[in-house]
């Protein structure tokens, strides 16, 4: 298994290089650094010298791949590709286009994201699994049919509607919790509860439906028939056999997203004014701060790949039949 994991980790490197090349192509070849400087300074009619100054300040005044002015190894290293793109591999995200230290910002802002993401994930899972079990218990009856229809209806409503109406009714009309904002420590609770509730409600449709399919698939298998044949009560079959075995796809499906939770949710955080990584990214997108966008793409990719590797490990833990080679 160790050998397998090492192989997987090594495979990460070409993937990350690919991601790096892709973002590099998008931001330095499709658009020259000069375009970025102009977008950042705002407008076409900026004086060339101002643009030049900005490029100097942010270290964009280098050639793409090969620097004629330097000699030896520096000709290859003192370039945009190395200084702006490959350097991400050392987790040195550098300075954002507006002059802030990205690594510091990231380490600061990932905690509020976690405050929202983890409760949403756990409560959402519990709610979805409960509903899905209920529907599976009443399968092929009107309860099940209307439940599925309800799920499809919930799925068909854009998440933005949930957020806006949640903010409006709970925050503005009933004034139960603040509409947006954030504080650390225990007072975070009143700011976190609304985003979590909205997040859970928004996920019910798709989640319940997906878990119901998993349960039903499991219920069609032979060992369930055996369990019923030996006279087990339906509730016992459901909780002892179906739930346990259905946990294999459920757990492995959840594990893959756990590392990405650090990134937070773009939409949620920006609507609720949570100072997490999601709103950080969205602000960067709106201010066209490409240094941050590139760093977040890189970080997101790493976290996702770690999630994939964790999934493999989780498989061996929850399903003893699986061996990694």
């Amino acid at each position, binding site marked *: 298994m160790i050998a397998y994991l090492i192989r997987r980790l090594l495979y990460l490197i070409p993937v990350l290089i690919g991601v790096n090349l892709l973002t590099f192509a998008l931001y330095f070849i499709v*658009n020259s650094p000069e375009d970025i400087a102009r977008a950042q300074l705002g407008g076409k009619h900026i004086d060339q010298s101002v643009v030049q100054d900005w490029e100097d300040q942010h270290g964009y005044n280098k050639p793409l791949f090969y620097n004629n002015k330097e000699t030896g190894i520096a000709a290859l290293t003192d370039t945009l590709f190395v200084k702006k793109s490959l350097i991400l591999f050392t987790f040195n995200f550098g300075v954002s286009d507006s002059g802030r230290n990205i690594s510091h910002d990231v380490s600061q802002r990932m905690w509020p994201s976690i405050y929202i993401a983890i409760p949403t994930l756990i409560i959402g899972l519990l709610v979805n699994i409960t509903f899905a079990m209920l529907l599976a218990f009443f399968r092929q009856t009107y309860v099940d049919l209307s439940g599925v229809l309800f799920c499809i209806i919930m799925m*068909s409503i854009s998440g933005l509607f949930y957020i806006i109406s949640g903010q409006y009714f709970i925050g503005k009309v009933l004034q139960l919790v603040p509409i947006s904002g954030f504080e650390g420590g225990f007072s975070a609770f009143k700011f976190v509860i609304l985003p979590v509730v909205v997040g859970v409600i928004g996920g019910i449709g798709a989640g319940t439906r997906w878990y119901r399919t998993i349960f039903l698939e499991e219920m069609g298998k032979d060992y369930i028939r055996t369990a019923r044949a030996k006279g087990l009560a339906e509730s016992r079959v459901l909780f002892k056999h179906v739930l346990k075995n259905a946990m294999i796809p459920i757990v492995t499906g959840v594990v893959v997203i756990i590392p990405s939770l650090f990134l937070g949710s*773009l939409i949620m955080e920006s609507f609720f004014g949570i100072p997490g990584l999601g709103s950080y990214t969205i602000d960067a*997108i709106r201010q066209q701060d490409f240094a941050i966008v590139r760093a977040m793409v890189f970080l997101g*990719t790493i976290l996702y790949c770690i999630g994939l590797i964790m999934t493999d490990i989780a498989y061996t833990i929850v399903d003893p039949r699986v061996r990694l080679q």
Partner: protein
Amino acid sequence: MTFHPVILWTDALIYLLIIASIFCVRWAKRQEQLRSAWRQILQSRLAIISLVILVTYAAIGFLDSIHFRATDQNQITSVESVFDYLVSPLGKNDEKTYSAPFATHLYNKDIIILPNGLHLRDFPHLKFVDEEQMNPVDNRTLDIIRHCTLSTLGGIVIWFIICALSIMLAAQRQQQKFLTKLNKIVKEKEGIVWRTVLITVGVIIVLGFNLFDLSHAYHILGTDKVGQDVFYETLKSIRTGLIIGTLTTLITVPFAITFGMLSGYFRGWVDDVIQYVYTTVNSIPDVLLIAAAVLALQIFISNHPEFFSNLVQRADARLLALCIILGLTSWTNLCRLLRGETLKLREQDYVQAAIALGTSRKQILIKHIMPNLMHLVVIALVMDFSGLVLAEAVLTYVGVGVDPTTLSWGNMINAARFELAREPVVWWPLLAAFLFMFPLVICANLFADAVRDALDPRIRKL
């Protein structure tokens, strides 16, 4: 007045898509397994109703995709679509600012200059609404009822005519008597298709007549911040939503089929390269990748204004760019699916037989493998559609969606955020976006489910 047709990029691609789907349908008609799947879809009442509603949306979107420029005595007007022309003067009467649905007055007080020269601060009358309805409120209710009754009656009459004509045609083709055919349809003796279709069409016609009539007398969904009719806006948003849902597939499908088949069939280094590419693209979180790509393209578009002669073309280019990017980021899942299926198919006896008989690789891929992948492609397409329509709203909110000047549900929801926070609350643009987006998405979801149930061999066995 003379009309000059204007073909925007997205229009051209929509026409291409329609032509392509006509060819696909003609091909599918000859395949027995697809015909039986189609018959299975038509056994579900929900699927039929969804299909009729989707077709209605598509018709509006299509009419809105035929653009022209009207020239009137050397006075060039802006680019319009056939749809604008049909519903005019709906898009043209601009009020000053917000007004509530069916209102006769503006939502905000403003200074009115009376005929005798005095200034008064009050709610000004809307320009659009008839003078007669302005005085007492009772008048308005009566007027609305009058409009509704008349248009409902008109709708029913038209519906009867349509029913009679279509039944007559069907009866003539099958050489039956009109009454026998009518009886069969009413009692659903030949399956549930026709009665369901006719009833759904009837409801849509009556509803459409009502809305059309009322929208010419009132702003039935109010007006927005700049005084634009919200009902018109949400109707125009249909095209944007449909384009994002459908044009994206023009990119996804060729990529996924080509790469999926090649990597599954040839294996070896081809497989390694293609797998590497899609793992890389797939490992970047979706929104981030789309945002990164759209931002890059936005800068490109704004730095090269010389490519676009006017604002409409520029907004159109952005819409197209969004579709291309969504397509380039979403082909990976389908590709992986097709690769797996090709790996399985190439070991099948009939493919092995074809190889033994010396059929060329190209022939095997196109004749023997591709047709057997089509069901997966169709399932993926219909399943993705609703997600894409929803994604438009989210991406537009993030700031990497359609152009702010393009009328879209995303832009409407985006604006609603601030409208709900102001006092007094402006709720109707959000409601309008919801009222028109929700049926489209839910019908797409229901229809997609029916298609999947009919085409997926794993489910069919159960």
